[in-house]
């Protein structure tokens, strides 16, 4: 199957996007990225700590993987815009995963500030991928200001709880004219497969891979799950029935009188 994902005119062979956070080492992160087959990874932007000089994360990533800087840590639109502009000026791609999160307990995004930041960043030439609560009305507004995707959370970041907000995501998928990327809260490969079977265009996974006992194997498991879920969606999933439907002929039984 020649199935590709297109975001803002750029084509990806993988519908899995991964985060680079929470790995025990950059080597494991790199191996997991390779095993996942993903072609886009998120990175955060932070001040350099001159007293604790770590290695450069980006040197561990394959050159053909698109870096998607995020605005994590921003609590307002202004902060997010500032981070995005700094990242782009310094040579990172002009793609931005927009996160405006004022709530440290559940890490739920601020819809008003997210929309405000998105409008500013699109105007400024960025390709904007906003993290959001699955709200079909907000999704439409984000599309209207020019966002390249909408990225609803399945459950709170890092919770691994799966598609808790399934029904709202389903409406977004039905209505969206830009790719829907289910981002955050997926804990197992089956969660990712379920999102893809629902018709999501892609999923973004970090903790579920990074915190697995074997992150590299889990990265591969997510890759397969995303492919399987997408293929199932494309193949057309059967209608459910209330009662059993026999799979074997009911006529011609050997034991019939």
């Amino acid at each position, binding site marked *: 199957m020649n199935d590709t994902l297109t975001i803002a005119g750029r084509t990806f062979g993988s519908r899995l996007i991964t985060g680079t956070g*929470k790995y025990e080492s950059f080597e494991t992160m790199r191996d997991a990225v390779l095993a996942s087959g993903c072609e886009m990874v998120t990175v955060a932007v932070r001040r*350099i700590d*001159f007293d604790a000089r770590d290695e450069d*994360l980006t040197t561990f990533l394959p050159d053909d993987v698109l870096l998607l800087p*995020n605005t994590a840590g921003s609590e307002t639109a202004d902060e997010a815009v*500032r981070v995005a502009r*700094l990242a782009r000026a310094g040579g*990172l791609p002009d793609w931005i995963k927009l996160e405006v999160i004022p709530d440290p307990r559940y890490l739920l995004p601020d819809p008003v500030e997210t929309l405000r930041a998105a409008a500013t960043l699109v105007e400024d030439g960025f390709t904007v991928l906003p993290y959001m609560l699955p709200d079909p009305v907000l999704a439409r507004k984000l599309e209207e200001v020019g966002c390249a995707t909408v990225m609803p959370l399945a459950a709170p970041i890092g919770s691994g709880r799966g598609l808790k907000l399934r029904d709202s995501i389903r409406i977004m998928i039905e209505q969206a004219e830009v790719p829907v990327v289910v981002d955050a809260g997926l804990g197992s490969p089956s969660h990712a497969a379920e999102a893809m079977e629902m018709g999501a265009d892609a999923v973004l996974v970090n903790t579920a891979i990074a915190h697995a006992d074997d992150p590299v194997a889990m990265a591969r498991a997510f890759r397969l799950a995303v492919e399987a879920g997408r293929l199932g969606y494309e193949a057309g999933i059967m209608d459910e029935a209330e009662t059993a439907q026999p799979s074997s002929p009911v006529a011609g039984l050997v034991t019939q009188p």
Partner: protein
Amino acid sequence: MTTCTVNGREHELERGETVARLLDRLGLTGRYALVERNGEPVQRASYPEVELERGDTLIVARPVAGG
């Protein structure tokens, strides 16, 4: 003494020190060093040309692991 601050730390400036020279002096040879000067992002292509001035407030950042 002519100084600026970099990530909140005082930095003594050489005469005519540019952003590129600053990064070099700080040993920042990685692939990305993102620089904000007095609240405005500095374009990477202009690092060799932008001269720092006394009292400048600089933030130097980079991509790190994140989701």
